[in-house]
């Protein structure tokens, strides 16, 4: 009887999650302050003032996470002038911090690489599978979630970016001013 109740509880949660996911209201992203690989403090609020943020959770053993971040480099190169920011959120152990910094440097990633050694942001966002990535618009809303990665996903992620970036002409006018 208890097992049936527990199964029912789990299925209810799953159904609630599925139905919640279908609503159009976007959840608000939790703000945070973390250090990047150079030791500088970075806040989500300061990043959102510049443009939308695509935050991907990764760690050194996650091959798919690294593949996604590699694949997004050409996408970032074409869209960074329009305000797109990509945050590579490392959830590696504190002891791996030196390896993470060295790895990021040798990969030549142009992203903002943050260290979440205490896993505070990972816990706040409820990340349990890697890679999980969130696209956060300038209002601080999570407008797109991407779980997992396979080759080609970067094209679909780019299409999502284009929905939330200002038009190219608007950006050029702003830079001329």
């Amino acid at each position, binding site marked *: 009887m208890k*097992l049936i109740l*527990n*199964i029912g*509880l*789990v299925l209810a*949660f*799953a159904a609630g*999650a*599925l139905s*919640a*996911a*279908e609503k159009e209201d976007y*959840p*608000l992203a*939790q703000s945070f302050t973390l250090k990047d690989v150079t*030791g500088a*403090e970075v806040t989500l609020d300061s990043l959102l003032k510049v443009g939308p943020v695509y935050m991907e959770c990764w760690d050194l*053993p996650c091959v798919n996470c690294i*593949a996604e971040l*590699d*694949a997004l480099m*050409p996408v970032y190169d074409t869209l960074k002038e329009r305000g797109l920011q990509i945050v590579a959120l490392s959830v590696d*152990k*504190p*002891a*791996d*911090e*030196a*390896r993470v*910094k*060295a*790895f990021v*440097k*040798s*990969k*030549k990633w142009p992203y903002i690489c943050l260290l979440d*050694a*205490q*896993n505070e942001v*990972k*816990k*706040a*966002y*409820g*990340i*349990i*599978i*890697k890679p*999980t990535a969130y696209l956060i618009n300038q209002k601080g809303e*999570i407008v*797109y*979630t*991407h*779980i*997992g990665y*396979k*080759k*080609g*996903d970067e094209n*679909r992620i780019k299409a999502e970016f284009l929905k939330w970036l200002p038009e190219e002409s608007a950006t050029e006018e702003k830079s001329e001013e």
Partner: protein
Amino acid sequence: MQGTNKAEFWLYEQDYATHLEDKLDLNLRYGDLRGGLGLFLYEPSKPWDAVRQPLRLLDYTVAYSPKMLEVLYGKFFQTFGKGLALRTYSDDDFRHYKSLNGLRFIGRLPRQTELVLLGARMRDIFFQENAYRVMNADSVHADTNDQVLGANLSSRPFSFAGFGGRYVRVNRTQDPTPKAFNELFGGDATISVGPVEIYGEVCQRLGTKPYVGGREKGFGYYLTGTVAIGSYSIVGEYVDYDKLGFPDVVLADRRTYRYTDPPTPIKSGVAINRGVDERGFGVTASGTPTAPLYVEASLGSLSAPRDSTKGVIEGEGKVRYSLGTDWTFEAKFNHMVQENIELHVASRATDKPTIHANYLFGQHTFAFEAEYNFVTEDTGHMVEPWKYHEAAISASYGYGEALLFTVGYQFVDMKLDRRFKGETSWPVVEAVWSITERNMLRVRIGSERGGYTCSGGVCREEAPFSGIKAQLISTF
């Protein structure tokens, strides 16, 4: 409100046993107030035994966190420094959840200074033998089921230098000896000059010999140095632990729980005895000579100074190349020798080449992976060591953003009753369906070889599996 739910269902082919598992995390925020609710369910089918027992846990977190401070009550994770004195974490991939439950205060001061004070009880949930257990629940075998008190001060007053200091006290519940607790005192320093960064951490343990009394001392040193120039970098790591891990007495039934899991310099996460008697180093060099090419080489060694029969050495080389946007290739070679690391295995040497290729064609994705492991294994009682080969091959096809199918096959060319229960092949098929952008269903049917696996200095023997696994992950 945000949250995630991971629900799993396993059906075992052998006896049609099942287990249901659910992990739900809800997070709420309202201004400076933060709340969290966590549900963890593990429901195995009957009959239950000492290993397979249901686990039902409900956790909560309430925190008040304006800009300069945080006061939290409930479940949290905390590591001091690099983890020599205190390390708690949530490792979903390895199914290991080591948390603290109690009170934590964080004060954020100028010059990147942070003070952490905590008083909590530890709970270590570990997945082993296809079941979850609270590893430190047993007061006879565990030494950490009472309060953990801690204080940590870290500061980076200058861009080129930082330091930290800490104190941790771990009480025991059942020991009439006066001062029946362990104290850990630690400190660290960081210096960054141009492309060079050096970090050093030291930790001293003062414990009490269980039941007989008398002070017990231990220490640990951890040193790491990084040089990064252009797109090349080299990282070196040195560890030296002597009775830092506790308790160092292993009871006859081998169920003694070990409190610490300090860093290991071995890339694959192998450790000897988790800080009791270990010394070793690790070096990793990596670089991107040209944009599509990434190369990496690493070497690590760990030994037990008081027991020369135990040790591990690992070397690995990796090359990854992207041909345009459609092709990606990766080749890797790993060599490892372990002596008296696994139970009943005197030595095990492996040489493992691996190749991986990915191809994108419009909406279609193809991936192929193959590894071949040359193994030499000696139990210590053999005239001739076993020499055998383990192989694994998998092919994946993905269509669009929603579907991914994988077919895999593992085999071994020798019948090993002790290691693989006499099985020699393990076929598996897997389908992943991204139902929506926030919901993913994964179904796997077939067999898994299992084996000895490690993460961050914690190792376990993964039992082979044959049956069906279904996993539903939802974020909201």
